[in-house]
């Protein structure tokens, strides 16, 4: 099947040529100046490449926003062990659909970024972990890798650089959200259940198969060639002081024109919604989830917030993946809570009691309130639950499960109270549950 959204509606450097079918091929990519950045990087010292990425301020695009260059610097320098890079294309955070387009429309940008990272960190192996449902996107990545091998760019002495040996493989997941969490991913890559590991040790010390490893989101890798090619100052000139470059925002839900939009970090929420044609059917906005359903919701009054993590953090939420979900005035926020809490209940890996039990409780309470069987005490328990989950577990999944419920209660408590008072859902026009 050909994808329906083939390219972002607003493009910038990263997605500029995504609409061009030829860009997916090695030949087409090179015709647009592709694989020049890796050649430039190979003329530099690995440490200087890593330093440039750190200077650029590039932050991870997988949800946590950690400094990319800093993470690379954790890889041990003196070691006899093989070092491993992992490109995270598990993309399962509800509301996020940007990584898919990179695999389908710009696989070589991602591969060039991985190669530059391999040079900078001394890695000789990379795995692209693609969620199992992304069969077509994974095929696209595999085809691009085959082209590189055929051209003699991968394997031994990549790009003619003696001793620069890199192999890249696609590894397909099999349907488990938790495998996006980096240590759950490592377990899955090793052929096990995707249950996250206790940290420390961190992946740079003990990663895939016990080898020093670095996990980055595939969009993070895809920005790297542009930083090397055009320079740190150019990159720092885009976005905000603390969040540099562009990102591929996704907008879905109740808008006229859902889609992807590559815009500088820090673009005001209002402007991004404008690109998506605004709220559909001319209705009023009720709330926006800024970056995947794990991130606490913003009320309509926060429309002028710049979409960068430092500004969103001031409002009690985060940028996450930049996959925004828009809800209009008809939306019942208790139904939203039901959908979101069901997801976390379903996807908890079950290792930690707080997470395994807490996600179930949250879901059952939300469901009960929605069905008009809620009592005031339910709201108290629901209000206490996020605090019982946050920061108490092996991985950040439990926080991701707690935050949206906390956010909905903070901004839309009235919706919950009305259900309990009226003993039914007072939003007849809301989406069907």
């Amino acid at each position, binding site marked *: *099947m050909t994808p329906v959204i083939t390219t972002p509606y607003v493009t910038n450097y990263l997605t500029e040529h995504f609409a061009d079918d030829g860009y997916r091929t090695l030949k087409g990519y090179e015709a647009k100046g592709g694989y020049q950045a890796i050649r430039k990087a190979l003329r530099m010292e690995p440490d200087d490449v890593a330093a440039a990425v750190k200077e650029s301020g590039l932050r991870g695009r997988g949800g946590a926003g950690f400094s990319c260059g800093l993470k690379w610097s954790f890889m041990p320098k003196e070691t006899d062990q093989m070092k491993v890079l992992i490109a995270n294309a598990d993309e399962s955070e*509800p509301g996020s659909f940007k990584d898919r387009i990179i695999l389908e429309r710009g696989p070589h940008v991602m591969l060039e970024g991985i190669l530059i990272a391999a040079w900078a960190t001394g890695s000789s192996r990379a795995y692209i972990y693609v969620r199992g*449902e992304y069969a077509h996107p994974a095929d696209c990545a595999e085809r691009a890798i085959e082209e590189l091998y055929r051209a003699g760019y991968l394997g031994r002495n990549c790009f003619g650089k003696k001793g620069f040996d890199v192999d890249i493989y696609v590894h397909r997941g099999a349907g488990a959200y938790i495998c996006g969490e980096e240590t759950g991913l490592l377990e899955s890559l*090793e052929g096990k259940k995707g249950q996250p590991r206790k940290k420390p040790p961190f992946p740079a010390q003990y990663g895939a198969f016990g080898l020093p490893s670095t996990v980055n989101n595939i969009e993070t890798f895809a920005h790297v060639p542009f930083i090397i090619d055009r320079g740190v100052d150019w990159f720092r000139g885009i976005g905000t002081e603390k969040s540099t470059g562009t990102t591929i925002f996704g907008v*879905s839900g109740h808008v006229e024109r*859902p*889609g992807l939009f590559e815009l500088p970090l820090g673009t005001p929420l209002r402007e991004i919604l404008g690109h998506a044609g605004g709220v559909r059917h001319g209705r009023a906005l009720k709330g926006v989830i800024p970056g995947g359903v794990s991130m606490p919701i913003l009320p309509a009054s926060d429309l002028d917030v710049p979409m960068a993590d430092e500004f969103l953090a001031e409002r009690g939420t985060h940028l996450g993946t930049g996959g925004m979900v828009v809800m209009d005035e008809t939306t019942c926020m208790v139904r939203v809570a039901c*959908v979101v809490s069901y997801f976390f209940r379903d996807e908890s890996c079950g290792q930690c009691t707080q997470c395994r039990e807490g996600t179930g409780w949250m879901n059952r309470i939300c469901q009960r309130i929605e069905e008009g069987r809620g009592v005031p005490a339910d709201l108290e328990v629901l209000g206490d639950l996020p605090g019982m989950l946050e920061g108490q577990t092996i991985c950040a999944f439990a926080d991701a499960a707690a935050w949206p419920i906390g956010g909905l209660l903070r901004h839309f408590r009235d919706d919950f109270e009305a259900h309990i008072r009226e003993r039914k859902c007072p939003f007849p026009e809301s*989406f069907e549950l």
Partner: protein
Amino acid sequence: MTPETRKKIETLFERYPRKRGALLPAIYLTQAEKGYVDREAAQDLAELFEIPPVAVWEVLSFYNMFYTEPQGRHHVYVCTNLSCSLRGARTMLKSLEAHLGVKAGQTTSDGRVTLGHEECLGSCGTAPMLRVNSDYHENLDTDEAKRIVDSLE
């Protein structure tokens, strides 16, 4: 497990520092034979990977895309996560349930379709959607979804 499948699996071992890494792709190859992995096939995998059968079983049961029971000839999944639900996915799923006479999670009596719902599939901007086997069908309405399901052999 057929000798061909075994051969294909063996070529994957070199991709990983330890051959256990090839277990997920190996399960996919094994599952492709009959559409699910039965006890015997799981036993074959355990022997090939030199791990206890329970280790294979544990992996099979952890991942949604691995099946240990016979499945319909086609898998039809509706994403019911938030972006899709906001655009009518659950209404669409209910019509498909009525149309096929099964509930999500069940297989039609003629073995043609296994219907299900799934969590976000990365089609949030083109919702609602159906995943039919490994293909995505996006920007659907209920009538179109029914047409797609009816066209399956």
